[in-house]
């Protein structure tokens, strides 16, 4: 049994501009100790998915269908008391902006100790000691005295480590990290990724939400690509980066500048992500897809096995047997000067 199983998740936002289908029939699973990357552009539904896992969606957002099973237990049916225990306890969370995740008027040690008290049976001195140990675990030098300081005395990278320490308070089996390094310098980002790497080596499963394909390439085992609320490709990390099967993934990969490439112009993905209050008919990517055919405007392709290796699915009519799609998709991705078909 997988640690986390998400099936047919539907999330809608009821706004004045109409009903926005932010997540549409999303299914994926995460094994113990596995690192899953969730990538996509802004508005693809990455963060909404992460929030939905813990029932943290605010009005006007609502989970309208599907199932989320954590360790075999249905999260969507869990009573509030149980949910509070899961949230931040068995499932730890790290969000993008550490300044908003920390309370400016309490010391850092007190905030980590509070998480320890809520999620374990440690109290008083024992909770404080555990908090200091957690701060040490996340690589904060001189943790005992740093614990007495306030968030404004921490740099962005150090504050993010504190947030990671809080997420570890309940000894979670799964860590959801939503853009944990966005906005940090590359040097500080490298330090934090080393820390996450170290934690994941201890059998912690990580769902890393990121728009940075470089971060995902270096950290994750498997990748889920989202577009307009849907999963459009799912594959082990090597397969995804070397042999992408969906035209959108291929477009994203060729739009990033890489160190050492000598292209004069970057490839672009023309157009913008669709308005999810009125998504285009058929495949949601067809208005931007260079390979789109008439059939693409009529039928929304499901995630289907894309051929060669077993564990690689893409949502494109090219991989649907009975589709009226002529193809072929003749893109390739150049990695490190080598062409790969």
């Amino acid at each position: 049994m997988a640690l986390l199983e998400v099936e047919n998740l539907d999330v809608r936002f009821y706004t004045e501009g109409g009903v926005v289908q932010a997540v549409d029939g999303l299914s994926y699973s995460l094994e113990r100790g596995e690192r899953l990357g969730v990538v996509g552009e802004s508005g693809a539904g990455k963060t909404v998915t992460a929030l939905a896992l813990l029932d943290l969606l605010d009005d006007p957002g609502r989970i309208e269908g599907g199932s989320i099973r954590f360790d075999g237990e249905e999260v969507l049916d869990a009573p509030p008391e149980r949910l509070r225990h899961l949230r931040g306890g068995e499932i730890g969370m790290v969000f993008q902006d550490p300044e908003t995740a920390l309370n400016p008027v309490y010391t850092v040690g007190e905030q980590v100790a509070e998480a320890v008290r809520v999620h374990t049976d440690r109290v008083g001195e024992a909770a404080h000691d555990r908090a200091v140990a957690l701060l040490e675990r996340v690589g904060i030098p001189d943790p005992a005295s740093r614990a007495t300081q306030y968030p404004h005395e921490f740099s962005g990278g150090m504050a993010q480590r504190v947030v990671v320490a809080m997420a570890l308070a309940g000894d979670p089996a799964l860590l959801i990290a939503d853009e944990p390094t966005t906005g940090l310098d590359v040097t500080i980002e490298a330090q934090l990724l080393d820390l996450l790497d170290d934690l994941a080596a201890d059998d912690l499963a990580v769902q890393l939400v990121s728009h940075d394909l470089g971060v995902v390439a270096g950290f994750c085992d498997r990748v889920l690509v989202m577009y307009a609320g849907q999963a459009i490709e799912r594959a082990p990390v090597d397969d995804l980066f070397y042999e992408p099967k969906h035209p959108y993934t291929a477009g994203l990969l060729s739009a990033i500048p890489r160190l050492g490439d000598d292209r004069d112009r970057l490839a672009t993905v023309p157009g913008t992500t669709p308005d999810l209050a009125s998504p285009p008919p058929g495949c949601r990517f067809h208005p931007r897809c260079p390979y789109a055919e008439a059939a693409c405007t009529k039928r929304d392709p499901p995630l289907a096995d894309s051929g060669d290796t077993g564990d690689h699915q893409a949502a494109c009519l090219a991989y649907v047997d009975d589709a009226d799609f002529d193809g072929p998709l003749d893109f390739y991705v150049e990695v490190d000067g080598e062409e790969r078909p």
Partner: protein
Amino acid sequence: MSDPLVSAEGLVKHYPTEESFFARLLGRRQWVRAVDGIDLDIYPGETLALVGESGCGKSTLGRTLLHLEEPTAGTVRHRGDDLGALSAAELRDRRRDLQYVFQNPTASLDPRLTVGDAVGEALAVHGITDRDRRVAELLEAVGLRSSHAGRYPRELSGGQRQRVGIARALAVDPEFVVCDEPVSALDVSVQAGILNLLADLQDEFDLAYLFIAHDLSVVQHVADRVAVMYLGELVEVGPVEEVFSPPYHPYTWSLLSAVPEPDPQWERDRVVLDGTVPSATDPPDGCKFHTRCPIVQDDCDEWADHPDLDPVAGAGSDHAIACPYHDRLEEGS
């Protein structure tokens, strides 16, 4: 090489940490040494990238170069004229040649002005007539439609807003544009479009860019030359292919090795720098980088000042590194 278009000499910009009368009276005021003695030349038609971690003074340098901030010391020359010696009216005229594109396209556009007004305002300030036709031309030059002129910023996507910011900077036909992290807030697919646009506009209008960025893969793609900045000073300057290959300044090397490459099999000698950039109010003695340097030597904290930028391949070379020990980097690794 031709004469520089814009050139900075001994440029310094210090900010007080507190402005109050009491702080001044009690001598409690400290100074943030954001830009601390920089010499830099920018040539016509080139792209010079300025890189470094946040807080190293990149944006302050960009603003001071255009005299959007008055320098504390040093001079900026544009076509040989000292900008500090110009009257306010003369400086405003100069701004037709010197423009700025801001990082956050949402914050830098007035939400109550239509796109046409935002772009046209620059034309009015500089007394350029035939506004509507010019606005339409500019919007088309940056890949928007002339019908966008009637829209408000909130009706545009982030990438479209950044295009408006670029159109506004180009409205007065400048020759030098400071682009302060122009693509940092954008998704990769949108970023690629803006980078291509900047390159096309450079060819078309013969622009020189100072391209401030922290993403080194982007820098390698756009720049002709690169200047690496650390705590208000330059530690390495040179043509992009030389800065991005050995010999390196140890700081440049650390930055490059930290870039996350979108290649799962990427093997690297990664050096992870300890800690963060020290405070610019009280920078370390000697070489400012010695507290985090992977090849620090015994005497690095003893110099009277930060080491000078020394040409790498003898005099006359345009690749310079401010570290007398940089050759130990290759021996060690």
